[in-house]
Each structure stands twice: as structure tokens, then as C-alpha cells.
């Protein structure tokens, strides 16, 4: 059951809501009586689970906007009971996907995932970081005779955006857990291979665990070791160094000494370049902001396939909102956020990969980079 929060805007909407509540005999939490529903005032309705989709469709048809105040009433009830909660949401091997994990554990997780799902998953070497750590990606691929197109997703290009690697891990788990039971996933994997890089900026991620929670860049030294770190998402060869960057190493948007100056960037770029004719879609996961961003950051001139890019993104955002009411904005980085150059997403699009998106996950600034672990699950569920 869900509780929806609606603020009716017009008298017409009030009437439509009145009718909806009466016809379906919905449980009004606020106000108590349908006749007290008023324009401009908060309305809270509890909708029984079997009716949730129907009610949401009806609201969409009447152009009444809503948000989900309580996504799962039963869960809230259970949580308020003083009884031992079973450790739900724990999957094979006891890995807890609703917590943040340090890099050591993520390496172990990758090995486990491959071992437990060897028909579908292979772990591959991608490259080495500056501090000589190995970058691995997971290939999720159903064995088949026909050649398949690729969807690539990378997480953790910026060290402090912990929700991003958490999402990559969740994503892999969801696909593998539901592969047998979900026909959509099976059909998906019949035609597409998924390549997932759970942590791109490994050195930075470790540094954010051990030294500075709000570190962003990688850990390569400059200026004789007096200054560290390039912003990997300004280091790709897409109008490199032109806008929205700094040439000063101490800046958080330092673009490096040249395009692809960083080993992490090179590792990703070389791989994508080698597979570019097979890659259909590139996704790079960041936080925060709640955006689905399209090319470009370096110019407001739209990419050649902008209409299609936007349409797909809008449908994705709508599906995302449908889960918990979280609203995502869609558009190009240059219009929605700021100007920047050298981003991975722009470079990927410029070399010819048609669908290229940056996801900025929860939230919009209340917690920012330090998103509480109890939001991992809803964030990942809605983004799935």
C-alpha cells in the first residue's frame, strides 16, 4: 500500500479527486472527508497495493501531479513494531547491498559474483590506476551464437559519490537475481551484453574512505608531489580544457596535463574505442542532483540525435518517478548544470556512440554526497 501526497491546483482537480476517492473508496488520511478536499491544500490518500497503478494512471490522465509520501505502509508498520526484523535484502553469500562497502570488499564481491554466476558473468581486466590498483569490469552475457550489442555502465568516477558504486553493485545483483524469473531481463540479455565497471576511480574511492570523505579526483601527483588529483570527468578528449575546468592542480575540476593524461581515463577510453561499433548505450553514474543529463557540457548546441536522446531520457525519468515519486530533471549538462568539457559522456557520444547519459542520483542537496545508507535501497530500486 502507498500513501500519495497531492496538492490539487484547480477546482476541476478537486472534483476529479473527490470522485476518485469515492468511487474506489480510498482511505483518506488528510483531510478525513472527501468534501474537505480543497485546492491548494495538502491531500494524503492511502491506496491499497492492488489499486496503486490504476490510481496513478488515473491521476496522470487527469494531469494531477502527486508524490509518494509512504512507499510501503506495511514496512513502516513493521518497523514500528518492537520485534526482531529479519535481515531481508541480503542476497547470496550474505553481502549487504544496503550498506556502503570499502574497495577491498568490492573486489571480493566481484570474485564472488563471478563464481556464483559463472554461466553469465566474467570478470575482466580493464587497466591499472595511478597507484597501480587493478580496474576490473564485469561482463554479463548470455552465451549465444549471435553477436550482441553492448550497454556499458561505469560508477564511481568521482570518489565521494558513494551511492554510485552502491548502485552498480545493486544493479548487478538485481539482474542476476531475477534473470531466471523475469522474462524482461531474459529477453534483454538475449540481445544485449551488459558491461559494468563498479568503481572507476579506485584510488580516489579508497582515499575517501581513509582520508577525506569529500575527495573527488584521482590520486596522481602534480607539481613535484605537492598537489594531487585530476578530475577524471574533465580528462577525456572531448573539447578538453576548453570550458568549465581549471588548469590548476589544487582545483577540484583540474583537467589534468592533457586529454587522457590519467591512466584511469586511458583504460576506459581505450576499451570503449576498441568496442565502439558494438556499444549501443553508455551510462555513467554520479551523484548528486537527480538528473538524467544528455550531451553536451561544452556547448549548448544539441547533438545530432537530440530528440531521440531526450525522448528516451524522459521516459526513463517518468519510470523512475513512478516508483517513489522522486523527481528527476532531464536535459543537457550545459543547460541544466553548468558548462564543462572533457567529460566521459561527451567523448563517448563524439566518437559515435548514439546513446550516452550521465545519471546524477539522489538527492538534491539535503544530504548531498553523504547520502545515508538507508537511502541506498530506494535510490537503487527507483533507478532500476
Amino acid at each position, binding site marked *: 500500500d502507498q500513501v500519495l*501526497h497531492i*496538492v490539487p491546483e484547480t477546482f476541476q482537480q478537486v472534483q476529479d479527486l473527490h470522485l476518485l476517492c469515492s468511487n474506489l473508496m480510498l482511505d483518506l488520511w*488528510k483531510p478525513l472527508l472527501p468534501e474537505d478536499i480543497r485546492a*491548494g491544500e*495538502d491531500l*494524503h490518500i492511502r491506496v491499497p497495493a492492488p489499486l496503486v497503478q490504476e490510481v496513478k494512471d488515473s491521476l496522470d490522465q487527469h494531469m494531477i501531479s502527486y508524490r509518494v*509520501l509512504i512507499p510501503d505502509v506495511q514496512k513502516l508498520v513493521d518497523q514500528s513494531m518492537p520485534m526482531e526484523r529479519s535481515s531481508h535484502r541480503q542476497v547470496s553469500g550474505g553481502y549487504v547491498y544496503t*550498506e*556502503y562497502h570499502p574497495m577491498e570488499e568490492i573486489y571480493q564481491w566481484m570474485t564472488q559474483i563471478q563464481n556464483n554466476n559463472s554461466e553469465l558473468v566474467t570478470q575482466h581486466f580493464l587497466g591499472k590506476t595511478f597507484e597501480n590498483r587493478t580496474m576490473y569490469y564485469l561482463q554479463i552475457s548470455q552465451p549465444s551464437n549471435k553477436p550482441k550489442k553492448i550497454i556499458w555502465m561505469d560508477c564511481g568516477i568521482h570518489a565521494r559519490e558513494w551511492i554510485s558504486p552502491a548502485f552498480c553493485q545493486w544493479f548487478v545483483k538485481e539482474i542476476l537475481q531475477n534473470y531466471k524469473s523475469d522474462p524482461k531481463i531474459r529477453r534483454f540479455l538475449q540481445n544485449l551484453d551488459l558491461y559494468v565497471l563498479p568503481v572507476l576511480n579506485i584510488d580516489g574511492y579508497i582515499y*575517501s*574512505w581513509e582520508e*577525506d*570523505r*569529500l575527495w*573527488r579526483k584521482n590520486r596522481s*601527483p602534480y607539481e613535484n608531489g*605537492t*598537489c*594531487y*588529483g585530476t*578530475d577524471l570527468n574533465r580528462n577525456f578528449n572531448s573539447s578538453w580544457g576548453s570550458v*568549465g575546468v*581549471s588548469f590548476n*592542480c*589544487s*582545483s*577540484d*575540476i583540474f583537467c589534468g596535463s592533457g586529454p587522457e593524461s590519467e591512466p584511469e581515463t586511458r583504460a576506459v577510453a581505450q576499451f570503449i574505442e576498441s568496442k565502439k561499433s558494438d556499444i549501443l548505450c553508455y551510462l555513467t553514474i554520479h551523484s548528486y542532483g537527480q538528473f538524467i543529463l544528455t550531451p553536451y557540457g561544452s556547448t549548448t548546441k544539441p547533438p545530432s540525435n537530440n530528440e531521440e536522446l531526450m525522448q528516451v531520457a524522459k521516459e526513463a525519468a517518468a519510470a523512475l518517478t513512478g516508483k517513489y515519486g522522486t*523527481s528527476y*530533471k*532531464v*536535459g543537457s549538462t550545459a*543547460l*541544466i*548544470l*553548468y558548462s564543462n568539457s572533457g567529460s566521459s559522456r561527451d567523448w563517448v557520444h563524439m566518437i559515435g556512440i548514439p546513446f550516452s547519459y550521465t545519471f546524477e542520483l539522489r538527492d*538534491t*542537496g*539535503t*544530504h*548531498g*554526497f*553523504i*547520502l*545515508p*545508507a*538507508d*537511502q541506498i535501497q530506494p535510490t537503487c530500486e527507483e533507478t532500476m
Partner: protein
Amino acid sequence: RAMELPPSHFPAGRAAAVAVGYLRYLRGGPGRGLELRTLRRARRQDIDDVGHKYCLELELEDVLDKGRTVHCTAEVLYHLGSKSTAPDVQVTVQGELRSTEEADQQFYNRIRSLEKELVAENIPDSHGNVPPELEPIHLLAWAASGYVIWQNSTENTKFHLAQVKHVKQVKRSDEDLQFDYVLLLHEMVSQEVIPWEVTVLWHPRRGARVPRDRRQPGLAPG
């Protein structure tokens, strides 16, 4: 001469952040944290020799009372050319905010009765956790950050409070509570995280005031 702006584009978003910061300072406190839910509408007017004025329609919510919508209108005037003048902000809140009188008094009494001055750091911690007894300290920091954000914003910046690095209570002989904070502010355009020393005075009836604030000199070592 007033241009309608798309609310999802950054110019309107940045002005909204300033308005919300200002309101947080004015009306926020240990029992109330206001955040932006939606920017409904934005218009911009360029005033010759003065600056850029943004007129905004906003929907906010109190993090402790998310079911209630707070409707606001705001005007944010960025002064031309001047980097050191804070934008002029006016905010009108429609309706009443939830009363925090009881919670405020409880917090006030609790802090006044502490034997040792309160000291804490890293709120929230790396995993986003805030111990319940520190939540009011966190919300008060959020209100204080609103002042710093309002005073230091331009059309090319967007600030959020990333974390409370450190807080120390300073006992006073008058009726105010005093907290000396080091706040970490995240600036979206430069992506910098900036430490800021902020002294906050607070009293249940007088609200929050920032008599002293200072951007911490020097950049953090790489």
C-alpha cells in the same frame, strides 16, 4: 522586460538556492529544516545599472514534517558587477509553518544543563548517519549555512552544506546558546568543498543569528 525562465535550467536553480538559504537562516533552527521540493516558476528581469532580479515561485518542505507543503514566493536581486555585495532577497511564506516551540525549549534546556560544553565532529558521519541527539545541532548548522550561502552567492555559484566538520559549544553568561562551527560547503560549479568557520547564536524566541563567519584560509592539502 521580465523573461520567463525554464525552472529546470541552472540560472533559475541557482537563484532558488539563494532564496532557500536565506529562508533557512530566517526560519530554520534546531527544530526546523527547510528544503526545496520544487521550483514551480521563475522569471528574470534585467534592471539597467542595478542587476538581475529573479522572481520565483517555490514549494518547500520541512524535513521534520514532509507531508506538509510550504508555498513561497521570492525575489533575488544579484547586484551588477559587485562580487562582494550579497544579493538582496525577499521571501514570502504562505500560511503557517509547523510550530517548534516545544522542541526548541527542550533543546534549549538540554544544552543549558550540560556540564561540559558540547563538542562533536563529522555530522553526518561518512555513511550519512546522525545520532538522534545531534540532529538539532545538525539542523542549526543547516540554518547557519543558509546565512553563509545567501551572503556569498552569485549567479555563477550554487552552494549546499556538505557536512559539519566540527562544532563546539561556547557557554555564555547571557541567555543565548553559542556554537562555533566549521562547516564544509560544497560549491557546485567549481566542485570545491570549502571549510567555513561560523559562529551561531541561538535562542528559542530570538532564533538564529550569525555574528561572525570566515572562510577558512588556505586550501586543503592534496
